[in-house]
């Protein structure tokens, strides 16, 4: 297995090139009221109702250069996912400027594409299509994915007949193989580091994660797994209530975070 120093050994020249993610002063407020309360607000638009608003991000700056891995840490509700979703184009920002160069892939969790009533093969195919693979490419990948997941004998079995561990292996393996194939320039990972599965499978997936991290993409990763963040990230940004409260080398920033809440 590659060590922390191996993973972090990048050409320093890479880090002086223009950032692939360049976000400055990004702010976002969520309106909490829905349904009838929204209707009421629309009928009385001049009546301010600040209690309905949640400031999720407040002037956040982030930049990630090619090949750089930047970690996002912070308590639940600190704005990590919101920031990733805004950069990934899933949410609209209220204010700020975001410049991206290259193909962006946002990923949160692994159970987005599987359907229990489809076979393992059909699920792999569907996940491949979600990642933009062509039918032929998926067909070629399926034996490889099945072997990695240890599901070669279950390809034509409906997913609901699998154990939860096998379902995890199906989702995680398909996702990693497709991500490798797509080779995004910008990878936004939201709490996807705890892959689950047995020890052997976790070891295999960790190697996949390392390959992904060393693949040259600009990676912004949000996680509560501080060990992983410290091991793989060049820099860490610590968010609290939508603001950046700490930023710098992984070890120091994590130490400060632990000191504050530990």
């Amino acid at each position, binding site marked *: 297995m590659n060590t922390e120093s191996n993973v972090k050994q990048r050409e320093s020249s890479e880090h002086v090139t223009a950032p692939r993610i360049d976000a400055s002063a990004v702010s976002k407020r969520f309106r909490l009221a829905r349904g009838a309360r929204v209707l009421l607000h629309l009928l009385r638009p001049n009546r301010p109702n600040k209690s309905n608003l949640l400031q999720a991000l407040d002037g956040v700056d982030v930049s990630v250069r090619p090949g750089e891995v930047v970690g996002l840490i912070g308590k639940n509700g600190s704005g990590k996912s919101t920031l990733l979703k805004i950069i990934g184009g*899933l949410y609209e920002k209220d204010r700020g400027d975001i410049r991206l160069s290259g193909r962006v892939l946002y990923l*949160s969790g692994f159970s987005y594409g599987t359907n229990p009533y*489809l076979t393992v093969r059909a699920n792999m195919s569907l996940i491949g299509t*979600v990642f933009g693979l062509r039918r032929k490419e998926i067909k070629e990948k399926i034996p490889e994915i099945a072997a990695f997941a240890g599901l070669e004998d279950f390809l034509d079995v409906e997913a609901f007949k699998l154990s939860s561990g096998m379902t995890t292996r199906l989702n995680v393996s398909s996702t990693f193989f497709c991500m490798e194939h797509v080779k995004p320039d910008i990878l936004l990972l939201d709490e996807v580091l705890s892959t689950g599965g047995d020890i052997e499978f976790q070891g295999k997936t960790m190697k996949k994660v390392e390959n992904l991290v060393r693949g040259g993409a600009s990676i912004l990763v949000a996680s509560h797994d501080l060990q992983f963040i410290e091991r793989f990230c060049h820099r860490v940004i610590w968010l609290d209530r939508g603001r950046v409260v700490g930023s710098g080398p992984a070890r120091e920033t994590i130490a400060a975070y632990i000191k504050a809440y530990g």
Partner: protein
Amino acid sequence: MRHSTALGRTMRLAFALAEARFWLRNAGSYIGIFWYVLEPLVFFLILIFLQTNVGASSIPEYPAYLLLGLIMVNFFIGATTGAVRSMRDNNGLIQSVTVDTEAVPLSAVIQFIFSHAFELVLFIIVALLFHDLSWHIIWYPVIFSVYVVFVSGSAFILATLGVFIEDLFNIWAVASRLLWLGTPIFYSLSPGNPLYVLNRFNPLYYFITYGRDLVVYGVVPDPAGMVTLVFGSIATLAVGVILFSKNKRKFGEFL
């Protein structure tokens, strides 16, 4: 080039989602996908029974007239009803991974293109049995292609509104029932009828009228009307795509 790649990706995902839903809709049932045929067939038989026993209709080639109207309106209602909920039904996918979200409402349309193909086979069999089939059926894909453009536009509009208005699914369920009854599927309309006036604003009326003229009666539709239908359908699609694109970054917050 970049746009064609993005379009290709969107269409591949739309097909894959539609294919999965098409097979899954009747998963576990004894007759599986044949429900797609059985459902309109039962409706058709009930309406034929009512027509022959309750009110005799003077509509020529009534079985073909009825079944074509039935399956064309079914296609619109099925695809648009699927589209209204499509973004909510695929919430897990939309919120978890970068995808071309346009594929989601399109998949609802494609799913019902698949089922329409089955219904069309049923139509041909019934029309043959009643000697109502004209060779003009070869022109049906032309009318249907324009119809798909219109339905896709409607699907984009409804999918967008469905994200922001949770009640739209129930509203659309009622509206589509009214549309089903108000569109001359099992009856015909004469100019003096108040429903005829209302139907002049109903796009489905023109699609099924032109479809019947062409396929059942072998009459070429009025060119001016056909041109209006083509441009109207393209305009509906353009409005739908623009509305969807302008709002898609807001979907994540509302789903």
